[in-house]
């Protein structure tokens, strides 16, 4: 038992996590004929709460309730894993990444997310505006404009051999590279974080 706990609290390797995530695709198809996709949940919340007569939000969102229940599960899963299965050690991050991030003032590896950014105090300065508000807007607007996110396009779409999803995934990656290598540092300076 102790060995099992030691094993399960370790960070899981990619070759365990990736296939488990991939299995979500047939699991959802078989249990309910559902196509895997997470960003749609954001659309359903908009449709449920502020449809404002916008054609994009006036559809029967109640039929898509499964998707909202699914993301609620993801949130609970995050709680369960952190509360009962947490890794006692600090996160291991590539040394080259640590060096790059040190230049951005990020050196705290005590949690899964950098403590310098992800705290409520950030909401009182530029950090919160940049990382949460602008970042969140880009995630919400971009995924809906693209018609899906990493789950709907990269995993579900490419798995079902649909080239528009491969195209979307290519541009997800290009956007990520552009932000990381070209924009992140200047933006952090602009918002007074550096």
């Amino acid at each position, binding site marked *: 038992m102790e060995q099992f706990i030691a094993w399960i609290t370790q960070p*899981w390797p*990619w070759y365990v*996590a*990736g*296939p488990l*995530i*991939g*299995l*979500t695709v*047939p699991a959802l*198809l*078989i249990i*309910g004929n559902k196509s895997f996709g*997470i*960003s*749609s949940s954001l659309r359903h*919340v*908009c449709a449920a709460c502020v449809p404002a007569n*916008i*054609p994009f939000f006036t559809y029967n969102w109640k039929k898509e309730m499964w*998707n909202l229940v*699914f*993301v609620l*599960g*993801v949130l609970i*899963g*995050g*709680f369960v894993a*952190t509360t009962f*299965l947490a890794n006692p050690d600090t996160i291991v*991050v*590539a040394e080259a990444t640590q060096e*790059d991030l040190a230049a951005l003032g990020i050196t705290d590896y005590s949690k899964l*997310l950098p403590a310098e950014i*992800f705290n409520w105090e950030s909401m009182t300065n530029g950090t919160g505006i940049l990382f949460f*508000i602008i*970042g969140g*807007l880009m*995630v*919400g*607007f*971009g*995924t809906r*404009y693209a*018609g*899906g*996110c*990493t789950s709907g*396009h990269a*995993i*579900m779409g490419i*798995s079902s051999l*649909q080239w*528009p999803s491969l195209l*979307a995934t290519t541009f997800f990656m290009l*956007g*990520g*590279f552009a*932000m990381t290598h070209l*924009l992140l540092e200047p933006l952090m300076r602009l918002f007074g974080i550096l």
Partner: protein
Amino acid sequence: MKTTADKNTAPIQCEAPNNQEQGEQGLALLKYLIIGILFGIVFVKAEIVSWFRIQEMFRLQSFFMYGVIGSAIAVGLVSIQLIKRFNVKALNGEPIKIGKKEFRKGQIIGGFIFGLGWAMTGACPGPLFAQIGSGFTVVAVTLVSALAGTWLYGRFADKLPN
């Protein structure tokens, strides 16, 4: 002409469609909660929710995320092929349907914008929920902001190139 007008005002189809014809309510939805919980546990235990892992990926300094996404696609692909080859039915007996993704310019422009946000927040929509559950409550601000972004897209969808 009428058809074009219809096209503009008719609700745009959901991208992750629910192809089940039978309705589902209450306890029937519990199975999605359980899959969601398992999925959230994997996200946290494999540290996919970590902003650091996303940075490693975009800096090409670790294979980890490429391994996760690549092996997830491989397993998904094989599963779908098996479902098609053996004509596997959904549990309620309906034939399994997979929505077709049509090409739109949004996959390029919107995809790029999402990529910018992904590298900044360190989260695609799935991990957003798992991060909040993990106790990073401030990510709720990101979630609300992502909802606002989704709403803005819906509001201006007809004015954007598509």
